[in-house]
């Protein structure tokens, strides 16, 4: 199974939207909860429609719109999105109204838009696209499930171009709940210092990232997606290594063939050890990079990593902002200087050490 990544649209806490730039400048948020840098939506949405839409819906529509333009695809043959939280802001609004009004006077808008599949539905409505439309809600595997569905749909020959995406929003209420159960750090950590943090928890994040996966290469192709694996609550590092080996060998590769690994290191002292084990043992000859200091931790953060990996291959450069300090093993330095071509990139990401995922992308 493989698919060509032919278009990308991403809204994140960094300047990633509507630009070819690849992290040449890092936005420091100085906050425990990173929020997206949003564009003006007037260009993408009729104001009459936009007035009812929550932030995450607007983000999804704008990001997918840019993605289609990038891939030069007007109507996809299928839309698959992944989200753990769905349209959280509207869900909160609706639930709060139930409580505050003693289950009376419930308004329709927040109810209609509180469902998890609202974003993919609104994308389809904007396009008048009646094709296959599915939303996966599987916590840390949500985006991964959408991508897997996309790959399988292409492999079955049922589609030529599919839109896959991941989106989740952070709200003040959700942040407070997660903070109380220890998801996030007590202290504010500067962006570039997150990797050195020795305390529990990470920083909160959010984002919407969409990709056109196609069955053929085009002028706009970023990279080829060659496979994906998910591992639920692995019992040991050996189990993780075995699954990665399976993915690599099914593509005729070994760990030594991986030029760059994109790790989901998030500064959480409880869970980062898995990444460091892989970095120092299994992928000791690969250049190590990380990304969650730029987008924060959220269930579909893998979609930000997917953008990073695609850009690494397309630009053949590694921004210094994502390079892990001592990673010079394969001759890569930073910001365009390189010793070898970036042919194969592997993403290793986990959400709370329970949902582990691996993506393999290659140059094509």
């Amino acid at each position, binding site marked *: 199974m493989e698919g060509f990544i032919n278009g990308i649209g991403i809204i994140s806490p960094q300047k990633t939207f509507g630009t070819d730039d690849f992290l040449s400048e890092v936005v420091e948020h100085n906050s425990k909860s990173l929020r997206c840098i949003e564009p003006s939506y007037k260009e993408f949405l009729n104001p*009459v429609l936009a*007035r*009812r839409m929550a932030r995450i819906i607007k983000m999804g529509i704008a990001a997918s719109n840019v993605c289609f333009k990038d891939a030069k695809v007007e109507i996809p043959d299928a839309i698959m999105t992944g989200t753990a939280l769905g349209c959280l802001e509207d869900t909160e609004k609706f639930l709060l109204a139930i409580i505050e009004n003693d289950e*009376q*006077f*419930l*308004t329709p808008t927040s109810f209609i838009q509180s469902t998890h599949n609202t974003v993919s539905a609104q994308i389809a409505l904007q396009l008048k696209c009646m094709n296959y439309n599915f939303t996966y809600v599987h916590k840390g595997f949500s985006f991964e499930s959408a991508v897997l569905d996309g790959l399988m749909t292409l492999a079955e020959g049922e589609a030529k171009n599919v839109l896959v995406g991941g989106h989740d929003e952070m709200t003040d209420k959700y942040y407070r709940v997660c903070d109380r159960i220890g998801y996030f750090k007590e202290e504010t950590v500067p962006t570039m210092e997150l990797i050195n943090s020795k305390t529990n928890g990470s920083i909160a994040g959010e984002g919407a990232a969409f990709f056109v996966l196609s069955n053929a290469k085009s002028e706009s192709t970023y990279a080829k997606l060659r496979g994906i694996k998910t591992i639920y609550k692995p019992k040991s590092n050996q189990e993780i290594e075995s699954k990665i080996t399976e993915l690599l060998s099914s593509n005729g590769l070994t760990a030594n063939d991986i030029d760059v690994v994109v790790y989901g290191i998030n500064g959480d002292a409880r869970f980062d050890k898995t990444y460091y084990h892989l970095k120092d043992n299994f992928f000791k000859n690969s250049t190590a990079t990380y990304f969650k200091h730029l987008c924060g931790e959220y269930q579909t953060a893998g979609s930000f990593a997917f953008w990073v990996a695609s850009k690494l291959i397309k630009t053949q450069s590694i921004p210094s902002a994502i390079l892990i300090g001592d990673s010079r093993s394969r001759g890569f330095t930073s910001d365009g200087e390189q010793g070898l071509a970036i042919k194969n990139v592997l993403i290793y990401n986990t959400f709370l050490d329970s949902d582990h995922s691996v993506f393999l992308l290659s140059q094509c």
Partner: protein
Amino acid sequence: MDALIDQLKGEIIEQLNLEDLKKEDIDADAPLFGEGLGLDSIDALELIVLLEKNYGIKIANPADGKKIFQSIRTMAEFVQANKK
């Protein structure tokens, strides 16, 4: 009546997220649906809830809705006649 019309305009702007509009942009006699404000069926439900929540008025006969929601002025007249 003018005070009630002004109050309704504010409540409608807030309830329907008409962010780009100010009270003075809304003509009290302009149609709410189709032309004028260009509201739709979901907005109609929001307006029904607004009347019930803010003024304690239930619209017993749905067929009356067309007359009541013709404009902000007709809404105000209905509220004044039925307010509890």
